């Protein structure tokens, strides 16, 4: 490929209010390849592709397409050159239908110019979805009623609809299920053959190795290097990303699980899951694996009292608890780290201090008045313990990186001294180094005797963390594996309903 690179970004620099996001990056890629861009959070990946998509303006450098400099000052310019992007934040209009979103800006009109030809529009939208293999989405549905993963597919369909020459996918898999991810990879391969350049950003290295031809590593706004995926090992890549070798990724388990602390019996919620029974021991890490839509998040929310179950019982330390609200659950000693921290885990407009103390304000107050000294002492100790950076309790959570935000949520539940901690996708959108930190924090918590329900759709971490793993499919618990029995193949087969 070398000299055939038809996209060249030379000497690209960009800074935001004094922080250098990109420093003289020379990046090139060829039409007809899948080129992955990896790096830790804040490495500059998103900034780089946003510049290419015309969503951000560069401070310096030039961009050549087929050897000719091009103007990419607005997304419209980029679009005219055949560059389309699926960014991390959705660009869909929630209350409009799938059809309108896919065909935004190019709705077919009838003879009268201002009259939308609806049948034709729907036909075209369906055709596009069909063509790229995303079936099972009703084009008349408002986007807001789709699941997050279906929204992501609509987003991709919208970008692909125009047959771009360069397609940018920024963390497309974060919300996709395994099955959907397969379809996305199939689509990527087709596009590649049809001579499209695909720039693929992802945190998940196994994905990157599966789909990419070449991988470029960014670190602290600089380009570390570009490698061929077939000639490179994961370990090497991580070293390039982090700039050092990481210690053990997963914590060693030192203690044996103790007596039973949580027992769920015949729990059901109409429409999401049915007849779920399991038990969790003190100091145990119980993995719960399931594809998106398997009902695992609803199960977690029901145990926590955020949603009412239709039947079943929850026992904590041998006693039946009826948590009608999260308030009851928190009092009883259950904590839930939700899968989407920005949606329902954090108040990002508030400082770290408020977020960490949120669940335990009553313990540091008298007559309704907060004892600031005591509050800050507690918050500081957790900030230190979890190494939240920067270590300022007055800092707005909005300004923290994803990994540190997740630590803030963890800190909140550590203060609550929960006996049972439910973690729903605790490492989503977190960089590699912080992931490892979070794994070790979770290990420590288990060693301290907390029972942990660890929900994830990433197999490696389920395997690496769990003492025992449960598998959920279509609302039912379909498998239980001991650490020895569990393997990627067995769990995945079980979760996707393949008979072994």
């Amino acid at each position, binding site marked *: 490929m070398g000299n055939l690179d038809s996209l060249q970004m030379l000497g690209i620099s960009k800074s935001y209010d004094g922080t250098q996001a990109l420093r003289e990056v020379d990046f090139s890629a060829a039409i007809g390849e899948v080129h992955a861009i990896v790096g830790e959070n804040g490495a500059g990946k998103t900034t780089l592709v946003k510049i290419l998509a015309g969503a951000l303006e560069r401070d310096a450098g030039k961009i050549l397409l087929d050897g000719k400099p091009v103007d990419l000052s607005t997304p419209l310019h980029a679009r005219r050159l055949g560059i389309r992007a699926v960014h991390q934040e959705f660009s869909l209009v929630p209350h409009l239908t799938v059809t309108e979103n896919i065909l935004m800006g190019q709705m077919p009109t009838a003879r009268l110019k201002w009259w939308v030809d609806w049948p034709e529009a729907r036909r075209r939208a369906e055709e596009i979805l069909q063509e790229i293999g995303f079936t099972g989405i009703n084009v008349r549905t408002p986007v807001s009623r789709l699941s997050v993963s279906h929204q992501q597919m609509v987003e991709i369909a919208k970008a692909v609809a125009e047959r771009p020459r360069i397609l940018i996918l920024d963390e497309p898999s974060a919300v996709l299920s395994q099955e959907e991810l397969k379809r996305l990879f199939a689509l990527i391969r087709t596009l590649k053959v049809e001579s499209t350049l695909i720039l693929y950003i992802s945190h998940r290295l196994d994905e990157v190795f599966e789909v990419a031809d070449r991988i470029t590593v960014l670190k602290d706004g600089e380009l570390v290097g570009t490698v061929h995926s077939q000639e490179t090992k994961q370990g090497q890549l991580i070293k390039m990303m982090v700039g050092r070798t990481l210690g053990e990724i997963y914590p060693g388990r030192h203690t044996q699980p103790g007596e039973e602390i949580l027992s769920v019996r015949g729990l059901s919620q109409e429409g999401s899951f049915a007849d779920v029974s399991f038990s969790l021991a003190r100091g145990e890490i119980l993995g719960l694996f399931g594809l998106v839509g398997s009902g695992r998040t609803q199960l977690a929310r029901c145990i*926590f009292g*955020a949603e009412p179950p239709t039947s079943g019982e929850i026992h904590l330390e041998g006693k039946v608890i009826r948590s009608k*609200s*999260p*308030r*009851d*659950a*928190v*009092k009883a000693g259950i904590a*839930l780290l*939700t899968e989407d921290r920005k*949606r*329902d*885990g*954090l*108040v*990002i*407009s*508030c*400082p770290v201090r*408020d*977020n960490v*103390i*949120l*669940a335990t*304000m*009553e313990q540091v*107050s008298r007559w*309704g*008045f*907060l004892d*600031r000294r005591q509050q800050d002492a507690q918050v500081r100790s957790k900030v230190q313990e979890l190494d939240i950076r920067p270590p*300022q*309790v*007055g*800092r*707005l959570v909005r300004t923290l990186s994803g990994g540190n935000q997740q630590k803030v949520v963890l800190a*909140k539940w550590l203060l*609550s001294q929960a006996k049972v901690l439910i973690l729903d996708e605790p490492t989503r959108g977190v960089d590699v180094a912080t992931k490892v930190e979070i794994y070790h924090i979770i290990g420590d918590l288990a060693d301290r005797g907390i029972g942990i329900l660890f929900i994830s759709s990433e197999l490696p971490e389920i395997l690496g963390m769990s003492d025992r793993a449960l598998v959920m499919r279509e609302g039912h618990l379909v498998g239980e594996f001991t650490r020895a029995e569990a393997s990627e193949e067995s769990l995945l087969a079980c979760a996707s309903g393949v008979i072994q």
Partner: protein
Amino acid sequence: MPSSSSVRQETRVRAFLSAQAGRWFGEEARRRWADYIYMAVFVVLVLIAASASDAFFTPRNISNLFRQIVTNGLISLGMLVVILTAGIDLSVGSIVALSGILAAGLTDQIGLVPAILVGLVAGVLVGVVNGLVVARFKLAPFIVTLATMSAARGAVYVYSEIPQVPSNPAFRAALGGGFIGPVPVAAVIMVTCFPLVWLFLNRTTAGRAIVAIGGNEEAVRLAGINVGRHILLAYMICGFFSGLAGVILASRLGIAQPSVGGGYELDAIAAVVIGGGILGGGGGGAVGTFGGVLILGLIDNLLNLFAVQTYYQQILKGFIIVFSVLARRKEG
């Protein structure tokens, strides 16, 4: 770039001030310092303009100014608490009329203090209705308070029957007309309420919960906090302050009119927004709101001194609202 050195100068000054603020009041203050800087600049500008008129810096005028901002000051405090929960309260003007007319009308029959209490309780009750409906039935605060705005206003007319209720002399002397030395009693009440609300918002669990609810209601619920109860509390506080404003206003005017208070909600929203409040939650505070109230009051007062028509004052207010929001956005 011709102005780069002056820009740098300004940045340096701001950096210095914010560092100082950080040292004195902690990180949060350092963050919000930018919000107050332009307000301080604004107040200074207005004061400079004011010095052009001999009439401005007279004790009489200053005392007048404070009496004039009492009503909006109190309502704005309540509005602030509601806006912090990502709500809004359009019924404040109707509460002003309701509480005023109850207090003024009942003083003859049941005595001064009970009458005032009835007025305040009436305000709180309207707040209870607002809060319950918003929290329990999850209706949009705009709609709910639009309804109570109409209903409460109707109730005032039904109750009063006559277009105005003259207030009892004792009632008049107590609040609106009273002075401590040169300082109007009403102004003292209002000015004390600001630190109280500041304390509530910053130092109590309920206050912090209210601020957090506006930022992310679901996160607060999942942290085990009773969100509905805090929303109810916010509307009750707003009702209370509106009631207090109504009682004081009726006392100052000497008569309670059922028509009073129309449009007061807009002035209060304006003051909160000028002071850094964000409709939809996630911003705003007592200090900023006081600044907002002061700025709006200064403009009215000053333009009155220069005998500019009210209509121009309204146009100017419109500009200031937009300007202040824009100014803040640049800082961020």
